[in-house]
């Protein structure tokens, strides 16, 4: 038996990217803009969706909820009467820590693509893994909260670089915290110069309007380019 070297030179995630492209083609066919919504666990993604999902001007929003287990987040959104589809990653080792293109593909038949303009995919709470896997989205948004520490952009650069909008949440807590907001914004700018940021509080509603407007704008942008 002999051994031979075979040159490959192929991005190992090409298979995922191919499926992501197929997802995106399906979404485009239905004129649905897709936002991949990412953060650490507990940063406030679901609350931010509760705030705006029912009321983005001129845009019908749907949500795909990615969780390792359970439907708590989807249940929280149910009262808004917007389409919510639950996707659990649980299998094997107790569940994947992120959504990949194939998981999203499996959920497409359940999505009412004819009835929505904007699909927000709430990824599994995690600052590392989701950044690696495209799912067929048009835009990526991440949420970081002021309870997480100013150094997070430097520790998770991939995530902070992967998105085109960074939301800084929970600013209502600033009076109670030893947190330097300027330092966080500086670190975000170091890791991803020029990235758009919105500083807000999902709890009090402060700064929620720019978030709503951003969603409206992204849906309009994709309609023009589609």
């Amino acid at each position, binding site marked *: 038996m002999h051994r*031979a070297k075979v040159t*490959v030179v192929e991005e190992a995630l090409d298979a995922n990217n191919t499926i992501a492209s197929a997802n995106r083609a399906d979404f485009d066919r239905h004129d649905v803009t897709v936002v991949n919504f990412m953060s650490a666990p507990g940063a406030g993604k679901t609350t931010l969706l509760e705030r705006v999902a029912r009321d983005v001007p001129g845009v019908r929003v749907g949500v795909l909820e990615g969780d390792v287990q359970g439907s708590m987040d989807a249940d929280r959104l149910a009262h808004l009467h917007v389409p919510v589809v639950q996707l659990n990653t649980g299998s094997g080792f107790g569940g994947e820590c992120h959504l990949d293109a194939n998981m999203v593909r499996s959920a497409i038949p359940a999505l009412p693509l004819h009835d929505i303009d904007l699909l927000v995919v709430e990824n599994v709470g995690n600052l590392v893994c989701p950044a*690696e896997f495209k799912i067929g989205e048009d835009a990526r948004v991440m949420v970081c909260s002021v309870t997480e520490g100013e150094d997070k952009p430097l520790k998770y650069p*991939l995530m902070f670089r992967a998105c085109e909008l960074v939301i800084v949440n929970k600013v209502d807590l600033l009076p109670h915290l030893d947190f330097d907001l300027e330092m966080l914004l500086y670190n975000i700018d170091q890791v*991803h*110069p020029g990235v758009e940021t919105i500083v807000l509080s999902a709890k009090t509603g402060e700064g929620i309007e720019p978030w709503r407007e951003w969603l409206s704008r992204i849906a309009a942008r994709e309609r023009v380019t589609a």
Partner: protein
Amino acid sequence: VHELSLSSAIVNTAAKHADGRRVTLVSLRVGKLRQVVPDTLEFYFEFQARGSVCEGARLEMEVVDARLHCLPCDVEWAIEIPAFRCPTCGGSEVEIASGNEFEVESIEIETEENACIAQK
């Protein structure tokens, strides 16, 4: 632990190119910006390779330095911390020259004949 999914992607990529032949070595290029933990990747690779043509194969990793290139200044530099502004002009028109790689560079396969294997 994205290393679990990443190692499965490596096994699939290698298996596709092996075309049914047994793989003894997978050579990978991993950029420093990918946040991949080599030991963890190796651990999961061994696990994911079981039952495939990659079972028992060695995983070899070349770590690629993170280098940035400023378009207006046309200078290139290596980074150790994730600061993506140009140190010369402070600007943001900076592209990643290297460090984003996550590719299977080559595989070593077992073959009956001592011949060169042409890649299709």
